[in-house]
């Protein structure tokens, strides 16, 4: 009898250990992701959804933006001064280019027509916008409005395409898996940077100069609200919980600090 007890105990212990090991792995996996995506997402028509909006601000004195040294194609690239956009803090400490999004929504609206035609412009040797949301299975279009050659290097998804000055419009392969934000570089002009997030649902917003974001037509429910910023990090570990009511409006501001 005692041996049986012992065996059962061992079994439990083994199971516990296995669970522990697997759970640990999973956490590690998630930590690598910069954004949190739901396992699956289903579109449905949403009527009388709620709204989440707010402002993202910087805590403390914002560092000055570094002016970029233009070492190539000066006639085109040097026309306007350019600054390192890894942290853009405007008036009232408003932070531009922060992604604010729902982490765990599994059902909701479809992307609107405009969101399905994402573009990044290359003008004066700068990518605009600096952060772009691209739905999965949708092709990102790169525009070249400069009389010089660029290249579009997104190493994380193994894409590196030359876009000579003659190729005004170049599309980038769609992704099937949500991922990112991945860094977009131009190696011809080493200072050019942008970020692309491949996302499975439309509840993603990027803050404007005033730090504002707005997620609209959200089905009523309780959600985890996340943010991501290139320099200031994310809140994957401690998302904010928001409760959205039909037709209601939730205000949720964020204050971000420099990472230590």
């Amino acid at each position, binding site marked *: 009898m005692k041996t049986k007890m012992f065996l059962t105990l061992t079994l439990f212990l083994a199971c516990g250990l296995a669970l522990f090991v697997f759970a640990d792995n999973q956490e590690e996996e998630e930590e690598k992701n910069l954004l949190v995506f739901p396992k699956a997402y289903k579109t449905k028509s949403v009527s009388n959804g709620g709204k989440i909006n707010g402002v993202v601000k910087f805590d403390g004195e914002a560092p000055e933006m570094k002016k970029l040294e233009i070492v190539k194609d000066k006639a085109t690239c040097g026309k306007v001064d350019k600054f390192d956009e890894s942290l853009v803090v405007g008036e009232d400490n408003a932070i531009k280019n922060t992604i604010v999004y729902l982490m765990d929504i599994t059902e909701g609206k479809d992307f609107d027509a405009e969101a399905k035609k994402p573009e990044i412009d290359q003008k004066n040797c700068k990518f605009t916008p600096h952060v772009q949301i691209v739905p999965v299975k949708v092709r990102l279009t790169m525009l070249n409005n400069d009389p010089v050659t660029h290249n579009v290097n997104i190493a994380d998804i*193994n894409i590196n395409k030359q876009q000579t000055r003659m190729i005004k419009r170049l*599309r980038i392969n769609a992704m099937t898996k949500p991922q990112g934000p991945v860094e977009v570089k131009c190696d011809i002009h080493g200072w050019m940077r942008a970020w692309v997030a491949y996302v499975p649902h439309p509840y993603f917003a990027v803050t404007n100069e005033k730090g504002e974001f707005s997620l609209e037509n959200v089905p009523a429910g309780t959600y985890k609200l996340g943010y991501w910023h290139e320099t200031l990090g994310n809140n994957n570990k401690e998302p904010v919980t928001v409760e959205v009511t039909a037709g209601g409006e939730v205000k949720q501001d964020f204050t971000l600090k420099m990472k230590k």
Partner: protein
Amino acid sequence: MRITMLTLTSLFILACVVMLPSFGQEAQEGSLIGKQVYEESCAHCHGLEGRGDGSGAENLLPRPRDFTRGLYKIRSTESGQLPTDKDLFDIITVGMPGTSMPGWETSLSTNEREEVVKYIKTFFSGFQENEKPPREVRLADKIPYSKESVEIGKGLYVELGCVECHGNLGRGDGTSAPTLVDAWDFKTWPANLTENWNFRGGSDPEDIFKRFIGGIAGSPMPAFQGDTFYHFGLTPEQSEQYAALEKKVEDGEELTTEEEELAAQYFEINDTAATAALDWAEGLEMSPETLKIYNDAMKVVYEKSWHLANYVKSLSPEKRPEFAIGKHVLRSQYIQGELPALADETWNTLEFSYYPLFGQIVVEPRQFNPSIDSVNVKSFYNDTEVVFLFSWDDKTHNTSEEENEETGKTYQDAIAIQFPVRPPKGPTDPKPYFLWGGKKPVYLWQWKASAPDTLTELTAKGIDKAEEQEAQGNFAVESDYTDGKYSLWVKRSLKTDDKKDLQLDVATFVPIAFSVWDGGNGDIDTKRVISSWYSFVLEPLPSTRRFIYPPLVALLSFGLLVGLRRFIQRRNS
């Protein structure tokens, strides 16, 4: 009874729980051999977990590959695709020239190499997730090498923007070269296309073709897929017409209705073909019609690409030049009267002698990642003077005395040409130590990019024991840096009054060696590239006497130095 059943079931489950993960692991990690080989031969560079962070990785550039991102440079597959097993097997077999990645043909058996391929694939999950085998670049319909093909390729080299990184003449001195970094943010340089023996993945037109069609994943070098070609989908004639229309619009001219329709039609053809190319790249199902559009469009692209591959091939000599020993020893040629100036065409009548360089790794600070392949030398002399033309490729022109912000040091390009103070008396008379002498001193000509018209004479008794000579000899010096190549022209009298100078006699073999600094690669002080001792001779006229001993001695001592270098390298690694 029930209890026994329960126990048995429990035992069974327990067994499963314990065994399952290990089963999974076996399938995933391949056989034990692969793991063993990896841990013994590869891990000290590539890291135990394949992250490219082995103990020997830090000093190396390019860094040993991090296998966890699935980025492989040398593939036979299309852009964005993983390599085939054969690609991996081949690169492991032959290694990657110009990097620290060795070839394993002799030290690992075929089976061991196959098993280690399986093992390194376990570091990136994409290999398991892929249902279809990676698509290979189509090599059919190769256009053979010809002058015409090279000429067409030359145009494409500029049109496609290769020139931005690789430079006008392919020496890797493009205007974007200084700022390039790889996917891990380590500094990287465009290949010097005139030295294809240093290519990582082979120098045949097929290799070159695969490199730019498929790209060099993880490096800044883009992939030149279909839709990145101008007017993809249009025939050459259509493209020409369309270009004319586009130019009209650009110049602000009105198009006639007919022209507008034509332009719209061409736009449509281009757009459809580009869409087909994306369908292809994404591995989507394609209708026979779309597939035909894609294939037709790619035909034009492949044709252009073969021309480009032939052009790139044409930039290098047929094979790496023979080292300047034996019958390739530098023989200064006698001419009567005035010696040729730097830009004189007379230089073109001579073949250069080729002096390979290697990183200085004997004394700290060392150069483990040399950026300069070799120095080429030509020479003439007359009754009173000798003139040398030294040339070497350098991707960056660093003349500045400006301090580097991080290190507080100044980096600039430079060269030093080394001779013994007195030529050895005979074959058995030993030469000074090749690293700037020792007990036996050496005599040096040092030139720096910051003072391009002067030469300094040094006497040295060791790599850190060099002194400027008090009386500086009479030299004529000229130099030039164009398209990634330095030329240094030095003229001197055969004899001087200074006892510390080298005196030159016709038909005497004189040892010569080089040190070169590439400021753009962080070369400074002992961190530089060097050669071992070679020799040169003022070829007597008429050249009837045969030299047997001196070249033989040169050959022997070169062999000795190669041995020494190997020994040092082995000791250091």
